[in-house]
């Protein structure tokens, strides 16, 4: 096997990141060297992932890579393995892409910070950890990568430790994240005690047929462990704190990448390792958690008045969509969930970077203090609007394409199973989408439109490097929205097949026929996945809207007096171009973010008051939530599994 063979690419993709981190530590004193190394490392990692699309996504190959070529002997996998199937590669692509955007953005965004070497080292190590987790085929390695990821994410959250609440957020993240990591470790060990192997594929062959009390406990522990990494309810306060306090380029990664690693872990755990997804209760559980996350977090977001904290709650709300869709256990559900997961990374990354741009120029993200920035930062405004439209699911952007599939998937599931509960999920998803729109209207009004406060008169547009990173993400938002057919064919459908192909996953690593010999008749065959019903939104209506809009603009521009009107020119009448104030002298009167949607909040004041009390900010409470969740998970596993 030549060293240039694609079989090696997974390990290269991880190695270049850690190597880049090491080199930055060694020779990265000078800024240009440092930036070059970071861009090269992240770019190379992305390139390796893209190069794998051909064999893995299109060719359907599952790459099993044994470190030091220590292949299994005597039916026992002793060596450490990487295994890349379409599902892993899908997440790998998302992760490395987000890293690349983040690095480009960081170059200018972090230019005024101290200790930039440490920043880039931690950044690369963080993503190295996530990529390692996603591509790993070994449970203990997964745990180590989780820890690498968590520790570097905590360090990066507290990186700007002078920022309001950064240390606090990092500490809470560390404590509750630590509980999650410990759960994963304990789960891994219990599985080892039962099966005497750490290899994921071998465990997947041995465990499902031999469920006993110990493995059920392990399942609950792993489930809670990965849930903390995905920040789903009840772990969402951590996400809100950490996203809000970290630098924007890190918020992108925490929201776009860390949550995805948790979702990946949950999918692997339920679909491949325990193969429990054919249980109706398991589906119900995932969908229930997803719906609760979706709704609770979107209402929490409505009550926020900090830009990034609001985005953070939305992040978890979108993860709720992903989890609900994935929990349906239908081809369409998984396909739409994965699609939405990818879109979430793109648009939420874009939004966080826009928030970072605002912070970079004005020094605050408080919605009550900002206003009217669109005149000063026109490009950022347009990019933000693309992101906002995407997350709210406005056609033709990508959020619409994937949400549309989520609605269809949940409704189809309701019809197929005859369970009216799944219909409720469709309704919750649709309402959540509207509430998402509402809170982005709030952000748009409070930050980019409205009146410009005096102190921001001298604000300028952000440097090109930052706009470039946002531009890449915005372009991808539009492209993945306009060509949903391509995305489903080349990315999500192979990944969905991989989800349903636990047998193939086992055999690729342990040798052909292993799954059948160990599991006998219960061996999970690669299920035929029917994509016929996977409807893809055809963006023809968008093309029409575009055409009509162009026509309308032409007609109106020709017929009206637009061209003769320009601001302040020929303003003979005093006050002609001032705002209308009912005849009074104009004063600064921006409607603050808190006051918007009063009519909605008033009716729900008890709910909002209750939620405000509940999110007390005391780390003990959050730890208690984690323990309660763990207890419930254990109870569930004991009763149902």
């Amino acid at each position, binding site marked *: 096997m030549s060293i240039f063979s694609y079989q090696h690419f997974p390990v290269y993709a991880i190695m270049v990141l850690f190597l880049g981190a090491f080199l930055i530590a060694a020779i990265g004193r000078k800024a240009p060297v440092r930036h070059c190394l970071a861009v090269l490392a992240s770019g190379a990692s992305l390139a390796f992932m893209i190069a794998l699309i051909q064999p893995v996504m299109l060719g359907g190959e599952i790459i099993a890579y044994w470190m030091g070529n220590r292949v299994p002997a005597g039916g026992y996998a002793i060596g450490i393995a990487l295994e890349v199937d379409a599902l892993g590669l899908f997440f790998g692509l998302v992760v490395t892409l987000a890293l690349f955007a983040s690095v480009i953005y960081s170059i200018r965004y972090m230019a005024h910070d101290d200790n930039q070497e440490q920043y880039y080292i931690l950044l690369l190590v963080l993503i190295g950890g996530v990529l390692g987790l996603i591509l790993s085929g070994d449970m203990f390695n997964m745990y180590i990568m989780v820890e690498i990821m968590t520790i570097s994410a905590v360090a990066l959250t507290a990186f700007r430790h002078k920022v309001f609440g950064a240390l606090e957020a990092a500490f809470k993240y560390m404590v509750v994240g630590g509980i999650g990591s410990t759960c994963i470790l304990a789960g891994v060990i219990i599985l080892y005690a039962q099966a005497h192997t750490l290899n994921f594929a071998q465990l997947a062959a041995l465990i499902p047929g031999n469920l006993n009390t110990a493995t059920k406990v392990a399942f609950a522990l792993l489930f809670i462990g990965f849930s903390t990494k995905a920040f789903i309810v009840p772990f969402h306060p951590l996400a809100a704190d950490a996203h809000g306090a970290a630098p924007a380029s890190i918020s992108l990664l925490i929201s776009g990448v860390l949550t995805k690693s948790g979702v990946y872990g949950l999918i692997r755990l339920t679909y491949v390792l325990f193969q429990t997804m054919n249980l109706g209760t398991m589906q119900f559980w995932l969908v229930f958690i997803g719906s609760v996350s979706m709704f609770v977090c979107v209402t929490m977001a409505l009550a926020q008045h900090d830009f990034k904290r609001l985005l953070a709650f939305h992040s978890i709300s979108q993860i709720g969509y992903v989890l609900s869709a994935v929990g349906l256990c239908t081809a369409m559900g998984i396909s739409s969930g994965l699609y939405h997961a990818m879109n979430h990374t793109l648009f939420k990354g874009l939004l966080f970077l826009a928030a970072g741009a605002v912070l970079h120029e004005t020094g605050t993200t408080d919605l009550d203090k900002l206003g009217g920035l669109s005149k000063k930062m026109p490009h950022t405004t347009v990019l933000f609007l693309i992101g906002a439209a995407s997350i709210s699911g*406005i056609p033709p952007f990508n959020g619409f394409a994937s949400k549309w599939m989520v609605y269809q998937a949940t409704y189809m599931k309701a019809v197929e199973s005859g369970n009216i509960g799944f*219909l409720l999920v469709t309704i919750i998803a649709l309402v959540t989408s509207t509430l998402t729109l*509402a809170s982005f209207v709030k952000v748009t009004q409070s930050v980019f439109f409205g009146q410009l406060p005096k102190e921001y008169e001298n604000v300028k547009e952000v440097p090109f490097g930052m706009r470039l990173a946002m531009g890449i993400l915005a372009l991808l938002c539009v492209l993945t929205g306009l060509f949903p057919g391509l995305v489903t064919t080349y990315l999500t459908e192979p990944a969905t097949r991989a989800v349903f192909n636990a047998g193939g996953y086992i055999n690729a690593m342990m040798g052909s026929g292993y799954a059948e010999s160990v599991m006998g008749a219960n061996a999970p065959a690669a299920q035929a996945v029917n994509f016929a019903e996977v409807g893809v939104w055809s963006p023809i209506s968008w093309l029409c809207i575009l055409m009509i809009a162009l026509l309308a603009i032409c007609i109106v521009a020709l017929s009206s007096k637009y061209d003769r*009107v320009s601001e302040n020119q020929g303003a003979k009448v005093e006050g002609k171009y001032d705002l209308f104030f009912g005849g009074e002298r104009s004063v600064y009167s921006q409607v603050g973010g808190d006051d918007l949607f009063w009519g909605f909040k008033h009716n729900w004041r008890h709910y909002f008051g209750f939620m405000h009390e509940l999110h007390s900010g005391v780390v003990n409470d959050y730890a208690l939530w984690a323990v309660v969740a763990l207890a419930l998970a254990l109870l569930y596993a004991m009763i149902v599994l």
Partner: protein
Amino acid sequence: MSLVMDAIKYLVYILVFPGFLFCFLSGLLLCGIDRKIVARMQKRVGPPVLQPFYDFFKLCGKETIVPAAASRTTFLLAPLVGLAALVVIQLFIPVFNFSAFSGVADIIVILYLLLIPALSIIMGGAASGSPYAGVGLSREMVTIISVELPLVLVLLAVGKVVGNAMGTGLCFSLTQIVAWQAEHGSLIATPSMIVAAIAMLMVIPGETGNHPFDAAEAETEICEGMLAEYSGAPLGVYKLSHAVKMLTMTSLFVALFLGGIGGGIDRMLLSWGLTGGAAGVIAVLIGIVVLFVLCAIITIISISLIHAATARLRIEQIFKYYWTVVTGLAVISLVLAWYGM
């Protein structure tokens, strides 16, 4: 060659019927009828039925003032995007036997496209920088949230009833819903759909922002809210959008609940011995007239009557009303539909 023909066909769809021209004429006419009826109910003479047309052309001739504090591009583009979105929705709504587009799940597309006009007025208002617009957009958004839930429930109920009947479990295609009705009679005859239709009638004035659900544009307290800074042609476009939205919502109602009339037209033509291409054209022409009459009737029932009889609600009352009364009706209809009634 066929590509050119297709392009011309779609251009005609977009520009003439059921696109711009049709929307323009019938929307403003509906608006005029509404104003006249309301005036008569209030014992006023009222404006001529063609008054909205005069208003529109007059506004287009006026100077457009862009406030110094506004974001120019967004301020000027927002009204056009909203109008364009409405025209696109109109393309998706079948007129009895005729539909310009037929999507697999165009109901959800329509649901989302319906957000865009409201969003455009919100964006335009936000871009104007006026504090009145700030208050107005806040109320507009709450109105959207209020209306969205019952609307979604009603659409799901309709999809379920037709899907049940067709044996596919659900149907999200408006074209199929109308086609099914043409064959089996209008949905309004089903018990669950009567409830859904009542809920839909209540949704229409909220969605169009008509009295008493016009807190967002309350001219007496917040100076028309988001429109406070608009003048000239953009204001005219907003007024037009409002009129077209009335047409859109009422014709959506017709498509959802009264689609059986299309079958009636067909049978009538057949009994006259008309077949072939000519019959199709005549059917469409009759369909347009019938559609307009039905739209006018629904406008009178759901918009004018309520307008004349009630005073404006406060925004939190609007929210409460929609999420309790109307949502309750919609839930009842959905549950009935689920159990096959």
